[in-house]
């Protein structure tokens, strides 16, 4: 079975488009000699029994996964959630300073941690409690998990670039301050091993 250039183009166009595409827009991409409706009809017929279907909504066209596959696709399908700034900062502090306490995280960030911050990191499976510090109050110590390494593509915590590496990669924001045109000796900031 051969497929025409127009059919291939419309197939790719609908596949790559973030929104359903209007008929007029499809027609604009095609030569005047070709009827966009015919191309769409032919594509729709091709996909009829497949796992993906060509659907029309208000004169706009899109591919959608076949409805009967919904339950099978949803199985084990995860719900994506964006990580907040407080969460990513707390996670970074735990990763660089582990094992560490909530109080230490708050001290480094300079603000108190919101209620759900560590909970979210726990739910994500990135941190776990690892014993308690032997000081009054015996606060819980937090550490990262193998799932944390896995998610961030790290083979070990040792992969985390040090302060100097971050600086060299341009990831340490420059503080407002005195910079001269001439070479200034970089001041050695902080050793990371303070826990």
């Amino acid at each position, binding site marked *: 079975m051969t497929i025409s250039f127009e059919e291939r183009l419309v197939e*790719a166009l609908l*596949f*790559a*488009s*973030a*929104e359903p595409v209007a008929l007029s827009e499809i027609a604009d991409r095609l030569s005047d000699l070709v009827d966009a409706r015919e191309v769409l009809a032919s594509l729709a017929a091709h996909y009829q029994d497949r796992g993906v279907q060509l659907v029309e909504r208000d004169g706009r066209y*899109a591919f*959608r*996964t076949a409805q009967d596959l*919904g339950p099978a*696709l*949803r*199985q*084990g*399908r*995860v*719900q*994506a*959630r*964006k*990580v907040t700034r407080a*969460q*990513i*900062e707390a*996670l*970074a*502090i735990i*990763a*660089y300073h582990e094992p560490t306490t909530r109080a230490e995280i708050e001290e*480094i*960030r*300079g603000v108190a941690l919101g209620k759900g911050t560590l909970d*979210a990191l726990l*739910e*994500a499976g*990135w941190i776990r409690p690892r014993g308690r510090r032997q000081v009054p109050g015996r606060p819980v110590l937090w550490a990262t998990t193998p799932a944390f390494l896995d*998610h*961030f*593509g790290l083979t070990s915590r040792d992969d*985390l*670039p040090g*302060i100097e590496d*971050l*600086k060299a*990669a341009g*990831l*340490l*924001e*420059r*503080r407002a*301050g*005195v910079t*001269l045109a*001439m*070479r*200034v*000796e970089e*001041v050695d*900031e*902080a050793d990371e091993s303070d826990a």
Partner: protein
Amino acid sequence: MAAAHAFQEDPVPVPVEDRLLLQLDAFEGPIDVLLALAREQKVDLTKIRILPLVDQYLAFIQRARHLRLELAADYLVMAAWLAFLKSRLLLPDPQPDDEPSATELAEHLAFQLQRLEAMQRAGVQLLAGTRLDHDVFARGVVEDLETPVGPVLYEATLYDLLKAYGSLRSRTAAPPPLTIAATRLYAVEDALERLRQRFGNCPDWTDLEQFLPHGIADAMVSRSAVASHFAACLELARDGLIDLRQARHFAAIQIRSRQGGGESA
């Protein structure tokens, strides 16, 4: 405009070094320049001849300095190293055994040129190949399959993590002590000292430029030397030690010593 034809000159071949000088900004350092020169030999880079290449590079640097183009220090260090390599290639090798021979150094340079060439070509090929969002496109929508039943997946990249820690540390780290780097600019005091030593035997009008120190590699330092010598001149003139003159705007500034006031004009 028939005359235009009559005076049309044969195209003068522009030396390679000059052509490269025109694109100096586009180079990524001295090795990159060397590679561009090596490509001019139009031979397989594995058969590159190092000596002519060294000469070409030295000529390139010479031209750049003659034209007072700003060259980063690396270019001059490379020139010094190549001049050293050349002398060792030409002279019998007196080096002790534990140091690489001149031939080895030359071979190594050839290796480095080939390697950089290979990486530059690889980069071009990567960019010219099939690129996502340019030649091929991914699925435009991630379908929301409604009522997800699986676990929650938190989304964050390694970049997010490192960036968060980086900005956190720069936000909260104790401010570094104020350091003012020693300046390498030419001080007015030094210029005064220099001029005091030299103008004594100079009863005739002489261009100030003659008194400037030569061979300062760094363009910034070189410019600061001009400024500080001019300032020093003004000071010496105020003290009645020299006369200053300038024929017109932007003309050369001339000075002469005023000995005992007898010669004052």
